[in-house]
């Protein structure tokens, strides 16, 4: 139905005599009104805490005390973290190692699993999808405890198996040389199924004609993968890389429930350090400053990653 039906025809850009606003303007205003609740909600729920967090990062405040006790310190929290604090930068490096290793694991293993699931003769695809997605749907705290038991030096299944094969027992989570590797394995296990499903969706979106044409031209399987599948998957790889980097740098629950950052701070990640700074050490200002430094890093990394992939794609 035409909403203007039955109304007087008006020449474009000519204001109607006796009326001040056009229909388009009125619609626009109604539009503003409709988005107002959402805008207010976002301002309160997202921007509010963000601004409050930033305000806190410029103060010295123990969360046990009243907020009125917060003392203005300016940029000193940031300065302390970047110059004097001996635990913040190492924790950031640990998170960096974890994120990079997990991105590689998620892309390589996730893509391999997706290609297996995309194999036309594979039976029980639905079962494999559910099985792969299950770790993602499991609580990270439960996963942390589960893997801590599997990695246990004396009773863990991993050392039991390697013991049968004649290898000495490894203190996966009790030795600073292996603890981060153990956490990376846990993290990759948790997310790889989810990303495999994402890759599978990407693979299924590639027209089969491309592969057929390449096959007629004599391209072998590897060449088809390298010159057709991989370039077609660039947006999916970009998505997986960005999301995996962000969640990798934010790892917390898996670590606190398995190693609690130890031994010798080998698995102390930046978000765990942030949590301890606020709730154990009672320095909410420094914790908030850490959060903003991490935020800036994540923003910069995401922009760089997306630009690189866009350039590569173009």
């Amino acid at each position, binding site marked *: 139905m035409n909403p203007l039906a039955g109304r007087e025809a008006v020449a474009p850009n000519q204001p109607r005599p006796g009326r001040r606003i056009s229909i388009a303007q009125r619609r626009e205003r109604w539009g503003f009104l409709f988005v107002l609740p959402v805008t207010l909600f976002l301002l309160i729920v997202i921007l509010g805490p963000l601004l409050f967090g930033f305000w806190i990062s410029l103060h010295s405040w*123990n969360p*046990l005390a009243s907020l009125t006790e917060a003392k203005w310190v300016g940029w000193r929290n940031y300065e302390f973290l970047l110059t004097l604090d001996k635990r913040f930068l190492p924790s950031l490096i640990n998170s960096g190692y974890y994120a990079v290793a997990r991105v590689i694991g998620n892309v390589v293993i996730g893509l391999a699993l997706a290609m297996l699931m995309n194999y036309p003769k594979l039976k029980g695809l639905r079962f494999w999808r559910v099985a792969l997605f299950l770790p993602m749907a499991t609580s990270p705290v439960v996963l942390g405890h589960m893997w801590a038991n599997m990695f246990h030096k004396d009773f863990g299944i991993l050392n039991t198996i390697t013991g049968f094969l004649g290898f000495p027992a490894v203190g996966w989570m009790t030795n600073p040389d292996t603890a981060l590797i153990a956490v990376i394995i846990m993290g990759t296990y948790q997310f790889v199924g989810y990303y495999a499903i994402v890759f599978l969706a990407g693979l299924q979106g590639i027209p089969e004609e491309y592969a057929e044409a390449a096959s007629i031209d004599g391209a072998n399987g590897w060449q088809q993968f390298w010159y057709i599948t991989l370039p077609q998957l660039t947006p999916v790889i970009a998505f997986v890389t960005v999301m995996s980097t962000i969640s990798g740098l934010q790892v917390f629950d898996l670590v606190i429930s398995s190693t609690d950052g130890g031994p010798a701070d080998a698995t102390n990640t930046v978000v765990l350090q942030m949590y301890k700074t606020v709730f154990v050490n009672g320095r909410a200002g420094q914790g908030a400053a850490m959060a903003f430094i991490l935020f800036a890093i994540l923003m910069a990394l995401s922009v760089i990653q997306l630009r690189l992939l866009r350039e590569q794609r173009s």
Partner: protein
Amino acid sequence: MSKRNHLMRMFFPQGKLILVAALLLAGCAPAATPTSAPANTNAPEPTQAAGPTQPPAPVKLSISNHLVNETWHAGLETYLAEYNQLHPNVTVEQISTAFADLQARVATDQLGDNPPDLYQLPAWWVGNLAQSGILSEVPADIVADVQKNYPQGVIDAVTWDGKIHGVPMDANTTVMLYNKAMLAEAGYSRPPETLAELKEYALKLTKKDAEGNTIQYGYSEWVGNLNSEYLPFASLLYSNGGDIFAEDMSKSAFNSPEGVEVLTLMTDLVQAGAFNPELTYTDWYTDRVAITVLPNWVRFYLTTYNDPAAFGSAPVPHGNGKESGAIVYSWFIFVNEKSPNKEAAWDFIRWFTQETLGEGKPTRCAQFYYDIASVMPARFGDLEAMKDVFSTDVFPAFVEAQSYARAPLAFPQYEEAVNIINVELENAWFLKKTPEEALNDAAEQVDALLQMP
């Protein structure tokens, strides 16, 4: 048209319709409470000067603790029910949070509208809690009671800035524990008394299989726990004549030659395969370790998983010509400054920590802690009332240590400092740093904390 009217019409051209809708919505809202007074279940009802038959106003107290273990929670629940029976107008309920989440819980409670009236928390948080204004003023009679009935180390543990801030509930001292059968098998008739002997014993008590793998460790600690790493180190440091901080608390002192000597002893044992920093206390009570230094709560695990009679206890080995040292730490109970029922809350504390279960019997607090985890009481009267229990198996050395043990230094950043020291101890134990480097790095970070306002 005025600017205001224009804006109103611009955004609310159907103003009348919106007004009707708003009125309809308002009509659907619950009716406003006729009185302006907010409902507060904690607030005592106004008393009337009517006469003696007026029952006392009901009071609901809440107590926040870490007793998430079902048995422990139920253990305290029994006493709370008893208190409720004796004081029909008072109800005390527990809010239990896992220890790992306790600090975050306290912080969020304090930001909320209705924080608990009472807290059972580690006394090494006393500086931080006092600085945050959570601790309410302890009544004079309770201060006098604590000063009279508790050992100095325990009093110091609940003291910050010269003031007692709560009532100690238990006493955990550190002593050396050893496996009697292992020492006897190695030909030792007594435990080591000096640091040199400790090293000698630990090396001799270490057993290796044909492939060179250690199957029995001479010495070990529980790595990865706040108190189980720092406390043995601090106890050995005190026993070697060293100190954690300078007397005026201006800087660290644990990186002194005495501290380096203690840590070097440990790393020497690591290199010889006699001390494995990957072990935990479970390895000790399951007969894989001969000697350790731990607080007395470990006795609970001995009764659960082994035989306490198979183990011996003795003061921490000392440096030549020096006296053994130890640390005593405690948990304490206090009233929240924000509690609207402070008087009732302190009454509960008096009942729980001072009144005994009968003539010659301990207080409920002492009985409760012993029953749930073999934890030692701090109150002289309780130790006397339970002397039959505390003169058996590993207890005597722990009890004796109460007389000379020192409290953890209750400065606000205590836990952070201990975490820093633990990380650097681990760096030395895992041979990532030399003992001197590790302690100097720890001292540098802890000194920065001491300078914080």
